[in-house]
């Protein structure tokens, strides 16, 4: 079990690190998709089957598409996807700060005594139970999330849409 986890964790973190270091945006995005799939695998390993498939659907199926679309729409020339090299000083600063955060987090995790749970068997939560949880105690939150998604959809469309409707006469 632990072996599987370590493999998943290693591959995922490595994919993320490489994605963040790559100069080619498309490669970065595709690697991140792979990274998200790895996280889904982690969820599967942890027994959260529904969450894993949701993660796949949302990230691999939807977010990746939007990201790729955004990448394609914001390239000056469609054939060059290579980024300008970033400034070295900022990279060094980022690495320093990131390293500090990593160290602090690792220190915190390792130094705190977490209750050694005896969860030997994987707790499974069936789709049906999840459904009644969502529709029962968390119904309000579900509604709010629905509203947020709707507002987001409309907002995103409005932000990204061109202003031709209002000022079309001036421009054309």
């Amino acid at each position, binding site marked *: 079990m632990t072996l599987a986890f370590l493999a998943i964790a290693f591959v995922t973190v490595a994919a993320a690190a490489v994605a963040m270091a790559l100069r080619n945006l498309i490669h970065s995005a595709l690697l991140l998709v792979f990274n998200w799939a790895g996280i889904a695998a982690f969820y599967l390993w942890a027994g959260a089957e*529904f969450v894993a*498939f949701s993660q*796949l*659907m949302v990230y*691999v199926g939807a977010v990746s598409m939007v990201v790729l679309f955004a990448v394609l729409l914001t390239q000056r020339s469609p054939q060059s996807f290579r980024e300008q090299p970033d400034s070295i000083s900022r990279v060094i600063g980022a690495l320093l700060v990131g390293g500090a955060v990593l160290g602090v987090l690792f220190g915190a995790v390792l130094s705190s005594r977490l209750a050694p749970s005896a969860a030997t068997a994987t707790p499974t939560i069936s789709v049906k139970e999840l459904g009644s949880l969502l529709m029962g105690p968390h119904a309000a939150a579900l509604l709010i999330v629905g509203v947020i998604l709707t507002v987001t959809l409309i907002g995103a469309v409005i932000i990204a849409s061109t202003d031709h409707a209002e000022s079309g006469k001036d421009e054309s």
Partner: protein
Amino acid sequence: MNAAFLATLSLELLPAQLRDMVTGWLPEPWRWLVNSILAIAVILASFGLLFAYLTLAERKILGRVQNRPGPNRTGYFGLLQPFADGVKALTKEDIVPRGADHLLHFLAPVALLAFSIMTFAVLPFGRNLVAVELDAGVLYFFAAGAATELAVFMAGWASHNKYSLLAAMRALAQLISYELPLLLSFVPVIMIAGSLSTQEIVHRQSGWMFGFVPQWHVLTPWGFAGFAIFMTAALAESNRSPFDLPEAESELIAGHLTEYSGFKYALFFMAEYFGMCALCGMAVTLFLGGWQAPLPFLEFIPSYVWFATKMLTLLLGFIWVRCTFPRLRIDQLTRFAWKFLVPLALINLGTTAFWSLTSGWTGGLQIARWLVAIALVVIPFQLIGRKLSAGLGPRTYRYA
């Protein structure tokens, strides 16, 4: 092989018994692995064969429709044509453009095929025939299916070709547009069945009304509407005509397939047919009662035969659509999805809610329930359709 085993042998249980026979020879710790490998092998083999002959069938039918014989030189009725094609594809030179992204160019067809095949895992081919019994099977199916468009994008982008890139963009736009009606169209089924497990959904459709009418979802107003939306969206999802915009030969010289040749091209082809089969299988599972027989006295025929029959019928329908409909324009395609299919699917959701709330109605109320449900499906269809097609009269071409 002893006599007792032979006595228990029946057509229905034959696959499972054969599998047990094979795994019985192996030590216990290996059995699960062999089970899985067996399932994968059987699926690959049978659907590989199906793919081969499906291409042949498509070419034959297309030929017939277009008043020409179709392939008829290799073997009787051209029966060996698929194998000849396979040999040709394998022996052709594999060309990769110089500016291409080699890794992605190679990965694209592989990933596409892999994801297509993955979807077969949760399809219940027969009463006891399902490779992986998942609690969230339907979700898994569509999660895996969503990844296929990503592969198409990879192929289009990696080819380093304008047309291919355009195809990639179109593939993304099309996926984003049609994912929504596709998902919304089967939510009613989940509402009624109360489960995301494919086997459970099929079981929920068992039983007979009046003793002979099957209780399939397609035979209810909401089910029929959902089925129609599902099949339309499935056509788009599998990039089949009339929604084959990413590969549109006449506009994009085959789109993302432009820079592919030889075996990679064959893989793409294979993946398309696999995806088509998977979606048809899902449609059968969700709406057409899965592996159940259509009439009570036909239940003696094995369930997997019924599944295959239904799936093949739907596949033939796809082929039929391909040879009759012209291709859409990209704006027509997205408008059709957003303005027609999505609202209808949402209204269908409401209809299903009504249906599920009124399940206790009997007698005259039962008739009222049917009438209201039909009205809820038909009237919006008519209204939205009218509104969308306003001003789009039949076109006349002067010189055509």
